[in-house]
């Protein structure tokens, strides 16, 4: 029998390849995906690592200021991440485990900062506590300088608190209340219950959240730029080298150094923590069970904590709005639309941001689901590589992505520098993991038997995808669309190297306007951005007629 030769290879790559060759449309899609990954991920990243010479590397590891920047980056992001995680946990616990009043309000407030670029918290800090800050100067008449490590710590904590809160809340929600009820039934209560059950179950998830926030704060560019003062971090140092000193190789070297910790964190998260997690964040919530595990006194403590944090967030948004719509807040309080007209209506940046974010959201959503379909449902050689490449950009600092793209695509045949296309490519790379992960979670909830039933009734993979998978994933697709739109609107570090005078973006404008002291126009742009995001959400919701509430994300 000739069959016998391959008979024992069923799970091997040879068998997978054989099955693949039998379905050509599938084979073509896989090849296309790998080609795209090759051009837009592997090639630019290799290029970036290729540009610096050995001398550049030596210069980077021996240069005092660079070592200082590296240490600063590590220290400031570690401290900010730790604080944001602690705040995020307390906040999430209060919302998920107590019956304090105003939970809905706190939920919404915590998510407001995600509607604007994280640099807005830096902007607000300048306006409130800067050298001519409203609180420090106008109200208290102090001459203080809070720029530097301390200011950065405060700003980053506020900026990354929402991310910590959202992630940890997801972890807490996925812990089955039955477990805690069982523990209570066995006599555990209060602190003991929390320590032995809730915290133990949540720990791997919290660690994941920690790493996620750490990657973001390591790569943060705007806030260190605005409030860092003389406290340099790698992201800003790389930017100064490229834009200030035209030293592209040094910029590349420093960006590469920033990648080392983030990629390390990525590997820990992906290959260690996910395997040791008790809760799957994709799990369906158990409905109808309310868990109350804290007493009345503790509940009011939680309430107080959430109120203070919410007040801080509202203060940021409030001061931004006040600056945006008064002549010169602090000196001339008369209402004006002129900043808004200057920063939003007459400027093309908002339109550019909107267009590129919309295109990005569409691409990442569609491409993410196609990718997930391939890696989850199909078996083919290179599946794990595809999965890895799709998730990799989550760990890459925006400045690294941006810099590698301009290096890779500034000459023929891919001369894209200074175009809208390269901006969209950068945003897409950054957001791809979001769309991909969302689609993977959605797909995992669809029973494989549904697809088999479709195949059994005569539909091939492509028809099954279009008629069964896509309609069933509608909700999770619109979540990833909305989310990736919002993130693309707000991203700063990814696009800082990609914008050009011709194609500038709103988030970049907010940063440079604040940096040059045009605080009112910067504030107006930030307000315009939030409004744009809200209106877009509303329209998308009307079109898709879905049940999704952005505040339940």
């Amino acid at each position: 029998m000739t069959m016998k030769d391959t008979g024992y290879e069923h799970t091997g790559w040879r068998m997978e390849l054989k099955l693949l060759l039998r379905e050509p449309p599938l084979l073509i899609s896989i090849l296309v995906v790998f080609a795209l990954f090759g051009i837009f991920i592997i090639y630019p990243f290799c290029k970036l690592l290729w540009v610096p010479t050995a001398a550049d590397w030596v210069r980077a590891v021996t240069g005092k200021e660079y070592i200082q920047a590296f240490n600063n980056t590590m220290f400031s992001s570690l401290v900010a991440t730790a604080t944001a995680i602690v705040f995020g946990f307390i906040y999430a616990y209060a919302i998920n485990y107590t019956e304090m009043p105003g939970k809905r309000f706190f939920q919404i407030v915590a998510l407001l900062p995600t509607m604007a670029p994280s640099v807005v918290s830096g902007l607000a800090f300048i306006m409130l506590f800067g050298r001519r800050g409203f609180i420090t100067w106008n109200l208290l008449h102090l001459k203080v300088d809070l720029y530097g490590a301390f200011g950065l710590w405060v700003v980053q904590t506020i900026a990354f608190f929402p991310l910590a809160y959202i992630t940890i809340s997801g972890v807490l929600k996925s812990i089955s209340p039955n477990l805690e009820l069982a523990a209570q039934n066995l006599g555990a209560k209060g602190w003991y219950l929390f320590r032995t059950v809730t915290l133990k179950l949540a720990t791997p998830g919290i660690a994941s959240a920690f790493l996620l926030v750490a990657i973001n704060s390591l790569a943060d560019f705007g806030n260190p730029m605005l409030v860092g003062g003389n406290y340099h971090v790698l992201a800003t140092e790389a930017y100064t080298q490229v834009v200030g000193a035209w030293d592209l190789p040094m910029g590349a070297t420093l960006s590469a150094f920033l990648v080392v910790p983030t990629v390390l964190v990525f590997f820990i998260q992906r290959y260690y923590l996910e395997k040791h997690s008790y809760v799957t964040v994709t799990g369906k919530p158990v409905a109808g069970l309310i868990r109350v595990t804290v007493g009345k006194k503790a509940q009011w403590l939680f309430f107080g904590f959430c109120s203070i944090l919410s007040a801080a967030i509202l203060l940021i948004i409030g001061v931004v709005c006040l600056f945006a719509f008064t002549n010169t807040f602090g000196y001339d309080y008369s209402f004006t639309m002129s900043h808004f007209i200057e920063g939003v209506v007459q400027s093309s940046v908002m339109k550019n941001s909107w267009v590129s974010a919309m295109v990005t959201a569409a691409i990442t959503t569609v491409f993410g689901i196609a990718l997930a379909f391939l890696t989850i449902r199909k078996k083919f050689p290179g599946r794990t590589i595809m999965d890895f490449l799709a998730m990799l950009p989550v760990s890459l600092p925006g400045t690294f992505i941006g810099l590698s793209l301009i290096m890779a695509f500034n000459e023929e045949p891919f001369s894209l520098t200074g175009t809208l296309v390269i901006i969209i490519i950068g945003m897409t790379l950054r957001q791809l993991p979001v769309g991909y992960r969302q689609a993977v979670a959605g797909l995992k909830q669809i029973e494989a038997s549904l697809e088999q039933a479709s195949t059994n009734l005569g539909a091939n993979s492509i028809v099954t995808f279009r008629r069964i998978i896509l309609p069933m994933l509608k909700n999770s697709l619109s979540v990833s669309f909305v989310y990736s739109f919002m993130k693309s609107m707000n991203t700063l570090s990814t696009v800082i190297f990609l914008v050009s005078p011709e194609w500038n973006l709103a988030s970049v404008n907010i940063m440079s306007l604040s940096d040059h002291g045009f605080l009112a126009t910067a504030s107006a742009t930030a307000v315009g951005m939030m409004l744009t995001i809200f209106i877009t959400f509303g329209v998308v919701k009307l079109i898709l007629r879905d049940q999704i509430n952005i505040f339940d994300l």
Partner: protein
Amino acid sequence: MAELVLQLNEINKYFNNNHVIKNVNMTFEKGEFITFLGPSGCGKTTLLRMIAGFYEPDEGEILLKGKRIDKVPPYNRNTAMVFQEYALFPHMSVFDNVAYGLSVKKLPQDEVAKKVKVALEMMQLVGMEQRYPNQLSGGQQQRVAVARALVMDPDVLLLDEPLSNLDAKLRETVRVELRHIQQEIGLTTIYVTHDQSEALSMSDKIVVMKEGVIHQIGSPQEIYFEPNTTFVADFIGTTNLLKVEVLGEHKVKYGATEIVVEQTVDSGKEYSLSIRPECIKLTGNAVDQEGEACVKGKITEKMFLGEKVRYFLRDTQDKEWVVDIFDPGKTLFTGEVYIVFADNKAWLIEHNKLDD
């Protein structure tokens, strides 16, 4: 000779290094209702999925109407399947679910509508066309799943434990209906189950499997009364298996009791006797009669089940027996009794390599 629909020749299947299907050979005739029966993990579902095309045999060939299909992708075989969890598309109405396969084939709309109507009528689903799966009861969902498969006019209908999610009463009703429809349209059907009463009551032919090996293929009566192996005897219904010694050409011995058997026995081989609980009588005194065997035992447990009393006994060789006494009246046996059965009710099974 009826028309051959499906043939499995020398099928072997491995999952990694596990040999899960071992040298399976089978042929199915048109209009037959065949059941794959066996404990979980015996390979029955794997075999069914190979016919549907979700797995590919590592060795051997599958022929549908004389054509090899084991390399054909699942969507190009006409082997409609009813899934254990029904796998109804939750975003489609009953009508769209049933019409799905036809519309994939790009049949004209009016023809689709006509065929769907027939299938829905057959499964008594008229009036539910616009409902969605989550608005249907378990029984209705099951009917939709069957209608969706029937409408394809499959060469062979595959059913993967389709009744296991229904409650006992409904299961019985659907069983009768399913068998009725299958016979009416003469549909070749393969049914996978681990429930022996389902297998016995519905099938023309039962395939009993264990650990990837076929132990017996036969009619329900053959499987029940003339099991090939001790596994089949034990798995189908309840039985008493006695290891016996060979005495003569037609004579075996259990303890001190001699039993005459129809089959010729060979002194070099090992045998067991299978005696069904309902074939046994209990008596207070020893019986010494031609053609009847008698073993002394002690009652350890009894269960009153209405139409019968089930006794559990232990004989002098410390072997456990199960005996069913029908129409028992009010008097129950207790203590030491004699287990009596007719020689011709004892079925002789030769031990072979299939029995471990």
